[in-house]
């Protein structure tokens, strides 16, 4: 949704996100054609066809085929953020990490609707799309992230990412960054601006630096990479990244902690930390983040105005009854904002949505996160953890989990199988 549309929307709603949206049926942006797909039996609607939404939709159907599941997703294809850094580095192609939705429909009877969700009427239990409304008994929202562009002075939501790609939603943005690296002269400088935590994929910026360096080492060995990190130090797998950079890219990657970018100028290709203005040939500004627009419009974000608080076992919003939020958008205690976490949360949520709809008690959460990062095209490192609920919060099981002892090609081999498995799990 564009800003203008959002303004109209809020004007219509009296500016109150989270208000019952029944009044919007007359709005020009929302078709008043009524129900897009009339509900006959019990129905779960899932918003978002990414790491969380696809799995939630599939596992509700697998757990109770008597429940109709409608997955609403604007795009016809999904491009994975995990492994998109390898596309930027050049050892993977975008097609390797792109999936469709056909088999979720044919194998599991998930009804896939390609519409943009414009609102949620929690009171009437309806999802509003441009093509009409979708009634639900329970709603699972897995919308991913949105950006807090407004915190970066000079950032234009359209022009800036075209010149200074964030590439933090994979697809077109990934390819802009890749092409800029290809076009850059040898001896150039690439800048990566890392936002304050929490953001999607904690080790992602450092894997990205590694993949840029892997490409530069072969094609542009005189080039360098500056990481301007809003956080004091590398936020994930720090020791392993530093070890890998020393081993493979000595002198090529400069890490600067406590260097928060506060201002950007996409015409001059500069970023400003408030202390220093730095110019790059390629500038990858990863803006600070929050839950995606729809989570905000539906009134699902909490007091921080950024992320969605949920029950730690059912992922039901603590703000809106009957609506569950999973993936990067929710506050999932110790579980990080990663693809694997979203996959695991989706399964927990699906089993519990089915339990609740059948009048049964919720089932205890058991979750996993496994996250690989590549230092070269072959060597990878990982972090893993197992989760349970303790005292109403998701916590890591003590004595389990942790990071790799070292870089390894075996972990790289497992990582390549992981991306295959998880994308096949989402799409078949």
């Amino acid at each position, binding site marked *: 949704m564009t800003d203008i549309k959002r303004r109209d929307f809020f004007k219509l709603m009296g500016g109150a996100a989270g208000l019952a949206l029944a009044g919007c049926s007359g709005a020009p942006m929302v078709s008043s054609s009524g129900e897009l797909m009339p509900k006959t039996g019990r129905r779960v609607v899932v918003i978002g066809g990414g790491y969380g939404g696809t799995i939630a939709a599939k596992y509700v159907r697998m*757990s109770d085929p008597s429940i109709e599941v409608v997955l609403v997703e604007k795009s016809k294809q999904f491009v994975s953020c995990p492994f998109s850094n390898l596309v930027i580095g050049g050892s993977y192609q975008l097609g390797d990490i792109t999936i469709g939705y056909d088999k979720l429909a044919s194998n599991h009877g998930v009804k896939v609707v390609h519409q943009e969700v414009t609102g949620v009427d929690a009171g009437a239990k309806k999802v509003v799309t441009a093509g009409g409304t979708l009634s639900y008994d329970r709603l699972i929202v897995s919308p991913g992230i949105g950006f807090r562009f407004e915190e970066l002075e000079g950032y234009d939501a359209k022009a800036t990412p075209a010149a200074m790609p964030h590439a933090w939603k994979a697809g077109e943005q990934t390819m802009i960054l890749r092409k800029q690296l290809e076009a850059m002269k040898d001896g150039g400088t690439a800048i990566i601006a890392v936002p304050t935590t929490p953001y999607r994929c904690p080790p992602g910026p450092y894997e990205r630096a590694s993949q840029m360096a892997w490409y530069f080492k072969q094609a542009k060995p005189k080039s360098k990479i500056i990481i301007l990190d809003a956080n004091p130090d590398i936020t994930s797998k720090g020791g392993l990244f530093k070890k890998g950079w020393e081993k493979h890219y000595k002198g090529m990657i400069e890490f600067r902690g406590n260097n928060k970018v506060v201002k950007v100028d996409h015409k001059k290709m500069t970023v400003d930390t408030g202390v220093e203005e730095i110019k790059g040939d390629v500038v990858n500004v990863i803006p600070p983040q929050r839950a995606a627009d729809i989570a905000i419009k539906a009134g699902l974000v909490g007091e921080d105005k950024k992320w969605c608080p949920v029950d730690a076992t059912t992922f039901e919003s603590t703000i809106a009854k009957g609506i569950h939020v999973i993936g990067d958008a929710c506050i999932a205690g110790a579980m990080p904002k990663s693809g*694997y976490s979203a996959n695991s949360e989706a399964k927990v949520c699906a089993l519990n949505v089915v339990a609740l709809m059948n009048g*049964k008690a919720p089932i*205890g959460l*058991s979750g996993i996160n496994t996250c690989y990062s590549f230092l070269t095209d072959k060597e990878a490192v990982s972090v893993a953890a197992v989760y349970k609920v303790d005292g109403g919060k998701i916590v890591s099981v003590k004595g389990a989990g942790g990071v790799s002892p070292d870089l390894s090609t075996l972990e790289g081999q*497992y990582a*390549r199988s992981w991306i295959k*498995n998880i994308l096949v799990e989402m799409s078949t």
Partner: protein
Amino acid sequence: MTRKWKHLAALTGGLVLSASVIAAEPSPAMLANACGGCHGTNGASAGPSMPTIGGQSAIAIAEAMKGFKSGDRPATVMGRIAKGYSDAEIDAMSKYLATQKWVGVGQKADAAAIAKGKDLHDKNCKRCHLENGKEFDENATVLAGQWLEYLQIQMDDYASGARKMSEKKAERMKKLSRQELEALAQFYASQK
């Protein structure tokens, strides 16, 4: 009071608490589903270095997990993950996975290697890995249609001594050369 809360109230002796404060126990499906992000839905893997575990022997899965947990079996992430589960949870997820359908992937292999592997299998392995590896005897595993990359990693670990074996198995395995182990891996991977 909805049915849900009546049920919870009954469980908690009249106290109505939020779901997560009660800290309900995970079900076998809940435990096993989390494995699917790497091992595929219902344990049917689509990635060649990750083994298919759905439809595998429950004893073998539990033994693998307990080996990872203790450090007896070499691992990358599995050692770190297995430590997150009690033995009872491992048994529950193993039994659940064992009831799933085994989805073997008959992979292309060199005909000579398959023939050699079949011969080695008949001479050394068939008493535990029954029916060309399609069936199992107690803690022996299903091997037919298991992923080749995974089998090769295991053969490497056996050959290097990193992965421990029963005496019965070690006696047979130590006589086999690296080429023979490779032929066996190719043979099993080619089965459906």
